[in-house]
């Protein structure tokens, strides 16, 4: 006997669109977030990610589509009936209330008995490591502490979904790196379904179960962090996440790719891409290396080394390829002198397994 358990997703977006007059902020989004999952909406500013978050929160009404929270359609429910927790980019703490009062607000609105409020507020402040700071006002706290208050305030109400709108972008680098680990670990511990909005790819990679890369109001690709990084589906995703050598060209009859400048790249082209189709060949700079002699196998592009950049842990070798294309190799800095000097004639090489051929969008 086969038992299939189809869990209701905690959050489901179906065909969500948001237009502002002629401007389309969100152009049709379908997304299922399962219970306990941490999903990141990642994209450049203006891609519609924050608008999508606002639509889930109920701050505005979608032009089209439906949103389900635990199976319940909520598009017509006002924000205060949706049972969501939101952490805003600027935290949006209530400046006239203490940290504890801020955290208690959602419970007060839910008419939780005072004794229970006190206990849950203390627990929430404890959870975000602010025990004992409840009597401070937001203005007396550091940016990092305010952020923790905002998180505690959103978590204490046990929302169906936790929404985080670029909560780390106002913190300095060190604190940001600490907080992303901490937020992710709190999220895993509580098992709370979370949608996180960011433009910072490393945040997305570190924190998420799945990443939805957004561009121009749509999801370009959705997958777990390694999917997105290792197997980008489009040029946009390939370029937006990490760094990439990209060569644009056309598939030849011989199943190679020829760039407009005449560089022929002998990379196996997947069956489903027809000869003549416009494609991009994508290969990560850290998955390539420089050779003096042409390798027997794999991608090999001949060129002249133009520049060596010293970045501390790594070096970047920028190569001008035959035909004028440019490529670069990122190599760990092992302490030895770089094997090549600018001006050297080199081969930019990579195993074919590290190369991807992406269909160009028309």
């Amino acid at each position, binding site marked *: 006997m086969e038992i299939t358990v189809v869990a209701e997703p905690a959050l489901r977006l179906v065909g969500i669109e948001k237009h502002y007059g002629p401007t389309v902020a969100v152009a049709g989004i379908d997304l299922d977030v399962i219970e306990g999952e941490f999903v990141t909406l990642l994209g450049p500013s203006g891609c519609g990610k924050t608008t999508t978050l606002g639509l889930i*929160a*109920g*701050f505005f009404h979608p032009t089209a589509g439906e949103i389900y929270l635990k199976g319940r359609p909520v598009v017509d429910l*006002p*924000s*205060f*009936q*949706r*049972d*969501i*927790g*939101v952490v*805003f980019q*600027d935290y*949006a*703490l*209530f*400046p*006239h209330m203490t940290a504890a009062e801020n955290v208690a*607000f*959602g419970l*007060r*609105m*839910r008419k939780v008995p005072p004794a229970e409020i006190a206990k849950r507020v203390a627990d929430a402040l404890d959870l975000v490591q602010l025990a004992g700071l409840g009597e401070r*006002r937001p*203005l007396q706290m550091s940016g990092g502490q305010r952020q923790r208050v905002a998180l505690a*305030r*959103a978590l204490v*109400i046990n929302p169906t979904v936790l*929404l985080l709108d670029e909560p780390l972008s106002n913190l300095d680098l060190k604190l940001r790196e600490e907080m992303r680990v901490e937020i992710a670990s709190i999220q895993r511990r509580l098992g709370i379904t979370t949608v996180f909005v960011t433009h910072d790819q490393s945040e997305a990679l570190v924190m998420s179960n799945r990443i939805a890369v957004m561009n121009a109001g749509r999801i370009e690709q959705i997958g777990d962090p390694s999917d997105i990084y290792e197997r980008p589906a489009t040029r946009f995703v390939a370029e937006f996440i990490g760094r990439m050598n990209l060569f644009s060209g056309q598939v030849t009859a011989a199943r190679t790719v020829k760039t407009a400048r005449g560089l022929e790249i002998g990379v196996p082209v997947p069956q489903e891409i027809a000869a003549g189709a416009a494609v991009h060949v994508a290969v990560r700079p850290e998955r390539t290396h420089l050779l003096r002699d042409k390798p027997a196998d794999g991608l090999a592009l001949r060129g002249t080394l133009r520049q060596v950049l010293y970045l501390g842990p790594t070096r970047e070798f920028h190569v001008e390829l035959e035909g004028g294309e440019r490529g670069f190799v990122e190599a760990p800095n092992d302490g030895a002198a770089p094997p090549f000097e600018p001006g050297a004639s080199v081969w930019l090489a990579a195993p074919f397994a590290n190369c991807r051929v992406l269909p160009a969008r028309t």
Partner: protein
Amino acid sequence: MATRFLSARWRANDGPWALLRAVVIFVYVFSLGPILITAAVSFNQTNRSFFPPRGFSLRWWERAFAPEWIDPLLFSLKLGSLTALLATLLALPLAFALYRYRFAGRNALIALTLGPLMLPTLVTGVGLLQLFQYLGWREYIGFTALLVGHVVICMPFAVRTVSISLQTLPPNVELAAASLGATRWLAMRHVVLPLIKSGVVAGAVFAFIHSFTDVNLSIFLARPGEVPITVKILGFLEFGFAPTLAAVSVITLLLPLILVAIVERVSGLGDFIYGDHRRG
């Protein structure tokens, strides 16, 4: 550290600072001077308004506290308080509508609301008097007409201060309140109103002071027995400036000052009176 820096600046820029000092002294002489002279005159022993005062007596003060003066004073207090209350209650939703929403007729509404600031109150007064007469509401001339007129001329102050405090409202706090389960009304009561409180209180105080000190409009809408203190003072001036008037003037001056001091103590007007932007 700070003082050293400051004193260095003093030395470096002596010229401009001397000028500033001169301006400050000038302002104080001409704003405080008349008040001090009036106060001094009220203690004259003679029945002429000499300055410096000749002799010392409190008899003019005694007279100032007679019903002849106390009644208009109480009348003005009542009028000013009611005006402040009504103007602020009307200004709150108006400021919200004007500041938050874009709608047809918004500019017209702004012009109508803030118009009385630009218009000479004298003209508003004459206009209101004619309106009341035209409508056959003669019996309302007096307190009711004064209240209407004062609300019209005082509301712009309240609308301004409330709008300003709405602009300094931190963004997203209302959305945050909504996401935490607060209805619009609860978000208003627990988040928005406490945060714009100083603007609302300042608006009420300005409205009160403007009402309490108005003479231009009141002069047309008063009737015997329903006379604000300012109109009463103006009428009495026909008989020359008696020391009684000096005493009454000092009282009239102190009342709003005391009010401002109390409000400042209780709720703080810092933002609006001193242009300070601390918020707590």
